[in-house]
């Protein structure tokens, strides 16, 4: 039986990391928002590794925070280990990563949702998207027949759509982490003419940590200083727990090799395409046959549990093989497996059917975010959820969508990659995907994006003021460093000598001195007598974002300027708009493939067109020539 269950502004389907951000953003922007989850106890679940951040991903978390999202704050509250990765490789690739207590994180996020005005949470399976005139979304229907009218729907269903679990030769229909799959929604989307892809991902086994002999493993402790994800947090004092490292060996590899025929991946039972960056252990052994060892990290799942996650051992081999291979690892001889590893196949939307706002090109009012868009990872999901949430609101209010471009944010890179290039495997963000990564640092995410978050309405006046104040302080200090000269005094030269730097013979600005690689901002404190009090530090352990920003901006100024020039070049092509009504079949000289791709994807700018696979530089020349012959297509 179908019944009318009421009216909301926005329905969010799925309460994973994308759904939570989308729902919070929508509700915070004043929309009556209804968030569906098939099981309220799995809100913000981490069915894979219990950590947040990492290379590229840590950048996303900070960008989410700068735009007014929740992930960073929740992670800061519940992290049990923190690390800054790549700290020696340059500021563009510094990345924060934290192990979080999974259950704690879920509880925090659920509570945040519950405390949010305008936000309603409902345990139900959405089985149908309802559309009206010109395909516009008008509502959703649940498995119990409840019909909710709404103006926008945000799909954030993760890996649930037609989920199918594989453990060795056993397979059954199911969602992640022992939950139910969502089968009917997938059909509803297909009926609406949305093309679906079939992807696959996998996860390793979980063990009882008490069954591991840690003395045979190498300890991997957290960093001494916890650098928070959120720009709103400054100090986190917390006791941290360690991860542990062990290695596979020839026995492990032998066990895997002799059982490959029982793997659903090699046996041809899985049709979905898996990600290259998250290979199963059997994959690694087949593809890199001459590698004798592979690392395996033991990561605690939380404080109130003994369960540990076995990073590096993702597998869909049968249970008995998993047990045997895990027990071949040093220290894991008596390991007790609590949950087996599995591969999961699921339906997702081919993201090239989306606009850069994450709205469907075909069905107005239908947004989607997260794994359903072909991405993987909690952070990638949350980032899209936030943008989809903001843009659903913008759509309802008749405002321009928030679109971040590739030079503004990793979120922009992520969405542009998905929407423009599409993806043939679950998509993971990487710093090497960004052309301008020296500009898109995690440390300056707030400088880049807080104004956008403020404009969108997710940053409070108070926070914005604090932000402006920080910005002023940074600028003032940079200015001061440029205009403050140190004399070639004995004191200064003694300091320089002690830092392994060459002496100065005449006065030199602090900024100039700071460009020397061996000299840090902190180190100059003693001779920099005019340094403002708030930038002086007695407690060297504490992390100071203003000092960090000043140091990076001054030290790497030359490089930063060069990337900014490149960004100008890039923007030129992005500004060349392609009229919506362009008829690609009328443009002579486009190759057939390019003509078809362009007609299908309808890029908004020449820049976007140039990134579509199958569109060559020659096609772009043709397009440019064509556009320049049409006066209405002048740059704007």
């Amino acid at each position: 039986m179908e019944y009318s269950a009421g009216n909301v502004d926005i329905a969010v389907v799925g309460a994973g990391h994308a759904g939570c951000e989308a729902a919070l953003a929508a509700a915070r922007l004043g929309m009556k928002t209804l968030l569906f989850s098939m099981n309220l106890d799995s809100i913000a679940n981490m069915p894979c590794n219990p950590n947040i951040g990492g290379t590229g991903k840590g950048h996303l978390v900070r960008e989410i925070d700068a735009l007014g999202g929740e992930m960073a704050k929740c992670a800061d509250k519940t992290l049990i280990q923190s690390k800054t990765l790549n700290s020696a490789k340059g500021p563009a690739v510094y990345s924060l990563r934290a192990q979080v207590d999974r259950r704690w994180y879920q509880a925090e996020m659920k509570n945040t949702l519950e405390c949010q005005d305008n936000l309603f949470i409902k345990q139900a399976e959405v089985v149908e998207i309802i559309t009206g005139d010109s395909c516009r979304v008008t509502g959703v229907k649940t498995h119990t027949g409840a019909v909710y009218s709404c103006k926008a729907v945000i799909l954030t269903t993760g890996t649930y759509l037609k989920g199918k679990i594989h453990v060795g030769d056993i397979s059954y229909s199911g969602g992640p982490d022992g939950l139910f799959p969502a089968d009917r929604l997938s059909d509803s989307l297909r009926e609406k003419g949305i093309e679906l892809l079939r992807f696959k991902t996998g996860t390793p086994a979980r063990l009882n940590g008490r069954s591991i002999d840690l003395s045979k493993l190498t300890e991997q402790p957290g960093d001494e200083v916890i650098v928070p994800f959120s720009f709103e947090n400054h100090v986190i004092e917390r006791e941290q727990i360690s991860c542990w490292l062990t290695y596979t060996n020839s026995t492990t590899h032998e066990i895997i090799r002799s059982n490959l025929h029982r793997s659903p991946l090699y046996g041809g039972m899985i049709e979905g395409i898996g990600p290259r960056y998250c290979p199963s252990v059997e994959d690694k052994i087949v593809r890199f046959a001459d590698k004798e060892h592979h690392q395996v990290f033991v990561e605690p799942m939380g404080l109130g549990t003994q369960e540990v996650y076995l990073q590096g051992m993702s597998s869909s081999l049968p249970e008995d093989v998993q047990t045997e291979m895990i027990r071949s690892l040093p220290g894991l001889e008596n390991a007790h497996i609590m949950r087996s590893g599995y591969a999961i196949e699921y339906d997702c939307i081919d993201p090239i059917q989306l606009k850069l706002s994450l709205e469907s090109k075909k069905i107005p009012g239908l947004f989607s975010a997260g794994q359903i868009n072909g991405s993987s990872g909690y952070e990638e999901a949350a980032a899209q959820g936030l943008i989809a949430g903001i843009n659903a609101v913008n759509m309802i209010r008749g405002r321009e969508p928030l679109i971040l471009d590739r030079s503004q944010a990793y979120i922009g890179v992520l969405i542009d990659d998905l929407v423009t290039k599409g993806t043939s495997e679950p998509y993971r963000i990487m710093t090497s995907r960004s052309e301008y990564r020296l500009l898109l640092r995690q440390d300056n995410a707030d400088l880049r994006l807080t104004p956008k978050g403020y404009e969108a309405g997710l940053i409070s006046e108070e926070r914005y003021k604090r932000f402006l104040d920080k910005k002023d302080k940074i600028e003032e200090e940079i200015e001061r460093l440029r205009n403050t000269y140190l004399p070639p005094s004995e004191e200064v030269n003694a300091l320089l000598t002690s830092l392994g730097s060459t002496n100065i013979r005449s006065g030199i600005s602090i900024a100039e001195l700071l460009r020397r690689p061996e000299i840090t901002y902190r180190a100059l404190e003693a001779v920099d007598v005019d340094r403002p009090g708030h930038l002086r530090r007695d407690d060297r352990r504490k992390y100071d974002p203003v000092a960090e920003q000043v140091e990076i901006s001054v030290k790497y100024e030359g490089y930063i300027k060069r990337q900014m020039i490149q960004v100008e070049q890039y923007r030129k092509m992005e500004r060349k708009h392609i009229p919506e009504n362009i008829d690609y079949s009328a443009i002579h000289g486009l190759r057939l493939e390019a003509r078809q791709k362009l007609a299908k994807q309808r890029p908004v700018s020449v820049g976007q067109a140039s990134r579509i696979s199958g569109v060559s530089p020659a096609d772009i020349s043709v397009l440019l020539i064509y556009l320049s012959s049409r006066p209405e297509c002048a740059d704007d």
Partner: protein
Amino acid sequence: MMFNGKGSFGDFDTIAAISTPYGTGGVGIVRISGPGAFGTAARIFKGRRDIKEIKSHTVSHGKIVDPADDRIIDDVLLTKMDGPHTFTGEDVIEINCHGGIVVLKNVLSLVLRQGVRAAGPGEFTRRAFINGRMDLAQAEAVIDLINAKTDEGSRAAAAQLEGRLSERIASARKSLIQLIARIEAVVEYPEHDIEDITGDIVYEGVLKIRDELQEISEGFERGRLLREGITAAIIGKPNAGKSSLLNVLAGSSRAIVTDIPGTTRDIIEEYINIKGIPVRFLDTAGIRQTQDPVESIGVERARGAALSADLVIIVLDGQTGLLPEDLDIIRETAEKKRIVLINKTDVADEERVQTMKKRLRESGDPPVVVTSMVEGTGVDELAETIERLFVSGDIGLNNEVIITNVRHKQLIDEAISSLEEAEAAHTGGLPLDFATIDIKQSAEFLGQITGESVTEEVVNEIFSQFCIGK
């Protein structure tokens, strides 16, 4: 972008042009491309078979006849080629004429009178490019081919067309991508036990690739010479034998030669192919103090020509020895590339010639060639000296990658300077990531020649080379 986007691309009309280099012998091609190519040919070509019946990609012998007055213009070979398997992707007719440039022009204007439009520079190539028949580097090479002035020039362009340049650039670029992937793998997966890449390894790799690019870039100077040629001014005091030199080089009596000093008044020029380099020789008035207003203008012009030439050939009279006027000229041209000829050695006193040589060594030591225009000796040595001066190194022309395109040269130089920045980043002690930015930029510049972008390739390379991921 290579084209400025002028002109309509709605419907392609039919275009025609002379498609072989000007002035390089008698044979040349008039090429017609577009939907009207066959129709036009049918009206002006009289062969054994009608155009309609001629098979695609075959050569037919016949005559070009003006349908207006049945006048025969030339005896030709005509090639018919059905689109899209042609250079431009369209229907193409090529008419091989051998009556020299005048006949070529006549055939072309006849074609144009049939309602065909004269092609703009590089327009054939542009169509080829637009019709997907060639990549950017190839397209540009062809444009050079069209502009090439000598055989060497066209061979260089042809070699480029065959993709030698693309090949070498692609290989340098591939090395860069692999280097980036190595760095990126470590950066993206900091905790994986892949061999850490040190700044020194990166530095070494960068140096190697930079050298490779440097070599490619150096091919450009040579390429430019092959394409554009050089100008050589022949100067010297009256009666030294300048005009005689020009005539010997040209193999004809191009300039008037008399034993009256001051015979040549104005500049006489002649294009002569010297070892594959097109050289524009300028014969000038003998330099001396003179009351004659006409001659003094000539002397001025001679000085001007010497000043702006790429090469100055100073002719000395071996009979007279080194006079103060000669020394003046030698001093004035000290900054230029130059060759000094000691002429008339058939009649000059051997000892005097030796003294001249000795004094020349003391006066700036320019390259000296001993010649006799009457006997024709020393001319080969002169040619060799010219080649040596302009084409450094002794690599055989055919094995070398020659860049003849300015845009490519610029991009390669930019790629080189990006690599130099990467070196500086390393030696300056900056973190690895900065060098990466420069190396990526360098690969990006090279990609602009071949039309590829870096990011996707790096990601692919990372996953194919390294076992990483959780």
